[in-house]
C-alpha cells in the first residue's frame, strides 16, 4: 500500500496536468511547419542576415514558403544540399564568396582633408560631415565594418584603410550593410582580379584626390569586354557566371587600381610602396612586349606584302626598316 499510493498519486497528478496541457495545446496551438524546425537544426545559427532575412529562423520560415535555397553563404554547399534534402528540391551550386573592400586609398594615397572629431563611427562621420577623406567615395576607416564582423576578418592598414582577410571571412555580408559608403562587395572566392576603387567621380576629380583611384580610362574594358565594365565613371569586374579572370588587365590599369591576387597578396598590395614600383615595371614590360609583338606582326605583314609584290614585280625596291622595331626593344 505504502508503495502503490505514491505511485497512484503521482500518476494522478501527471494525468491531470497532462490532460490540462492537451486541452491547452488544442486551444493555444500555433501552426508550425515541422520542416521549419528541421531547417533550424541544419542552418548555421550565425543569425548573420546574409540571406536577407532576419536571422536563421527568419530564413527557415521563408524557405518553407519557397524562396531561393542558395542564400546561406556561411553554411556553404553542405547546408544547401541539406536544405534541398529537407525541402525535397534540387540542390543548387553555391559559389563560395568573400567580402572585398573596394577601396585601396589609405591616408598615404588618398589624403584626409580635415580632422574628424565626433563619434567614432563611419556612419556618423559620413552623415554629419561627409567624412574626413578628400575622396567622397573612399574608405573612412573608422571601423563600422570591423565592429559588425564577428570573425575578426576586417583589419586595417597603418594608413587607416579597411580590408577583409579572405581566410577568416565567412561571407555573412554584415560588413556590406554596415559600410555607409557601400564599398564592400561580396565576390566569388575563386576570382583573383578585382578593381579596388568605387569612386564615381570623373577621372579628373578622382586623380586629384587619390593616387590609386579608378580614372575611368576604360583601358581594362577595352582589353576585355567580357570581364570588365565601366559605368558611372567607375570600373568594375563582371563576376557573373562564365566570365573569367584576365590577369593582364591588371597591368593596363594606369593608376593601379586593379589588384591581381596571383601576383600580390592584399596586404602588401595595399601597404607596400615597392609593389607599385614593381607594377609600373611590369606595366612597362607588357607595353614593350606588346609593342614588339605589334611591330613583329607589322613586319611580317609587310614582308608578306613585299613577297607578294616581289612575285608581281621582281624589281621592287627594298622596304625601309620598320621604325617601331627599335622603339619596341626599349
Amino acid at each position, binding site marked *: 500500500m505504502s508503495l502503490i499510493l505514491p505511485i497512484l498519486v503521482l500518476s494522478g497528478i501527471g494525468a491531470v496536468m497532462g490532460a490540462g496541457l492537451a486541452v491547452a495545446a488544442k486551444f493555444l496551438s500555433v501552426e508550425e511547419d515541422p520542416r521549419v524546425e528541421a531547417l533550424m537544426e541544419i542552418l548555421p545559427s550565425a543569425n548573420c542576415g546574409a540571406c536577407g532575412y532576419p536571422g536563421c529562423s527568419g530564413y527557415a520560415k521563408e524557405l518553407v514558403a519557397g524562396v531561393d535555397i542558395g542564400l546561406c553563404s556561411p553554411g556553404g554547399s553542405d547546408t544547401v544540399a541539406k536544405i534541398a534534402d529537407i525541402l525535397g528540391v534540387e540542390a543548387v551550386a553555391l559559389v563560395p564568396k568573400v567580402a572585398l573592400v573596394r577601396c585601396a586609398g589609405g591616408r598615404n594615397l588618398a589624403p584626409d*582633408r*580635415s580632422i574628424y*572629431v565626433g*563619434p567614432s563611427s563611419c*556612419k*556618423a562621420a559620413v*552623415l*554629419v560631415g*561627409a567624412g574626413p577623406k578628400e575622396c567622397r567615395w573612399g574608405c573612412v576607416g573608422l571601423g563600422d565594418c570591423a565592429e559588425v564582423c564577428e570573425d575578426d576578418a576586417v583589419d586595417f592598414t597603418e594608413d587607416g584603410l579597411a580590408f577583409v582577410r579572405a581566410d577568416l571571412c565567412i561571407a555573412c555580408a554584415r560588413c556590406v550593410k554596415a559600410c555607409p559608403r557601400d564599398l564592400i562587395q561580396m565576390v566569388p572566392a575563386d576570382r583573383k582580379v578585382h578593381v579596388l576603387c568605387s569612386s564615381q567621380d570623373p577621372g579628373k*576629380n578622382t586623380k586629384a584626390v587619390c593616387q590609386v583611384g579608378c580614372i575611368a580610362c576604360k583601358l581594362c574594358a577595352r582589353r576585355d569586354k567580357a570581364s570588365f565594365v565601366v559605368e558611372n565613371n567607375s570600373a568594375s569586374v563582371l563576376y557573373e557566371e562564365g566570365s573569367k579572370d584576365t590577369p593582364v588587365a591588371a597591368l593596363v590599369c594606369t593608376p593601379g587600381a586593379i589588384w591581381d591576387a596571383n601576383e600580390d597578396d592584399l596586404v602588401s598590395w595595399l601597404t607596400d610602396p615597392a609593389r607599385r614600383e614593381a607594377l609600373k615595371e611590369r606595366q612597362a614590360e607588357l607595353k614593350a612586349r606588346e609593342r614588339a609583338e605589334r611591330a613583329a606582326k607589322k613586319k611580317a605583314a609587310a614582308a608578306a606584302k613585299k613577297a607578294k609584290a616581289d612575285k608581281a614585280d621582281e624589281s621592287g625596291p627594298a622596304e625601309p626598316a620598320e621604325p617601331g622595331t627599335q622603339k619596341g626593344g626599349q
Partner: protein
Amino acid sequence: MSVSFKGGIHPDYEKELSSGAAIEDLPPPERAVVHLSQHIGAPAKAAVKKKQQVQKGEVLGEAAGFVSVPVHAPISGKVVEIALHLHPFGSLQEAVVIESDGEDQWCELPPETRPESLSADEIKDRIRDAGIVGLGGAAFPTHVKLSPPPDKTIDTILLNAAECEPYLTADDRLMQEEPERVLSGFLALRKVLGAKDAVIGIEENKPEAMGAMEKAVGKVDGVRVARLHVKYPQGGEKQLIDAILGREVPTGGLPMDCGVVVQNVATCAAVDDAVRFGRPLISRVTTVTGQGVASPVNLRGRVGTPVQAFIDAAGGFRGNPGRVVLGGPMMGGAIHTTDTPVIKSTGGVLVLTPEELPPAEFDACIRCGRCVRACPIHLCPNEMGNYCEVEMWDQLEGLNVGDCIECGCCAFSCPANRPLVQFFRYAKLWIRQQAALAKAAQSQDDN
C-alpha cells in the same frame, strides 16, 4: 531693464576686434563660384548654359519648388562651367562658375519704387524673385516664412538684432551705418504679414546700434526696441521669442505656431534692396575676424567669392592659421580650403590660431550636469550624448533630440570636451535617414 531666456552661456565675445571697422566694399571677384544650393530646401535648377554671357543680377538658377529660391549672377561675365564644386558645408554641390568681364554691369532692373506703394503680395513676389533667404545662418527661404497657413494669424514680427554669436559684428555695423534701410525692409516685411506689433531685439553690448535704430524708429507706430541681456544664444529664434514675448514655440513647431515671425537684420536690409530697387540678393556684409587675421574688417562681398579674397582684404593671416570657420565660433562650420566660395548665409569668416583650438580628444561624461543647465531648449544633452555615442537609438526616443537647435552651449560648457553637437547632428540625420528608409519600404510594400 533687459530681458532674456533661461539657460545659455557667456562665452568671450571678442566683438571689439571688428566692431570699430566700418563696412567696406570687397571688389568683385575675377571668378565667382555660385552654388545652386544656398538655402534650405530644393536646390535651384540651373537656368543658364555654358559659355552664356550673363549680366550682374541675372537669374542663374530657378527656384525648384515652393521651399526654394532662385540664385543670381553676382558679377557680369561668361558662364564657364556648371559642375560640382566644394560647398561650405563640406560636400560637393552643383555650382555655376562665372568668369568676370570686368564690367560689373547690372542687368535690367525695375524702376525704383517706394515700398509703401506696393501691395503685400507684390512685396512677397519681389522678395521671392530676389532669392532672399534668412541671412542669420539658417538660410531658410524668406517668402516661405512670409506665407503662414490661413489658420495661423501672425500678431508680432521680431527683428533679430541680437547677434549673439561671438566675434561677428556684421549686423551691428549694418544697423549703425544704414539703420533706415534695415527699418524700411523690416516694415515691408511687417506689411506682408499684417502683424500689429513689431519689436527690434538688440543685445545690450551694442549701444551705438541700439541708438541708431531707436533714432530711425522714431515715432513709427507699433515698433519698439527691446534691450536684451547679453547671453548666447539670445539670437536663437525660440530664445528671442521667449525673451521678448514670453511665448514658447511648441516641440517640432515653427515660430508661426505661436503667432510670431522672426527676421534677421541682414535679411531686412536685403529685403529693402529687393523691394525698393528690385535688386536680387548677390552681396552681403561679412565679418572677417579672429586672432588669426591681421586686421579684422567688415566687408560687403559678393556671393561666390572665394574665402581667400576675404582674408586677403583683412590683411591676410597673422601667423599660422589654426582653423578657418565660416559663420561664428559657436555654430559655424570649419572649412579645409580657402578656395571655398561663400554663400548667401556666410555672415562671418573667423580665423582661429592653433592655440585657440579645443583639443580633439574627448572623455567620458562625468555627469556634472553643466550642459543641462546651459541648454536653452531645456533638453538633457548629457543623456542624449551618452546614448548617441553608443548608438542606442531606442533609448534616445523621448529625449526629443529633434528639438536641439545645435547652438553648441552644451559642448561649450562640457568639461570633458565631448562633441555633443556632432552627436546630436548624427542622431538627427540618422533618425531622418531611418524615416526615409521606412517610408521607401512602405511605398514599396504598397506597390
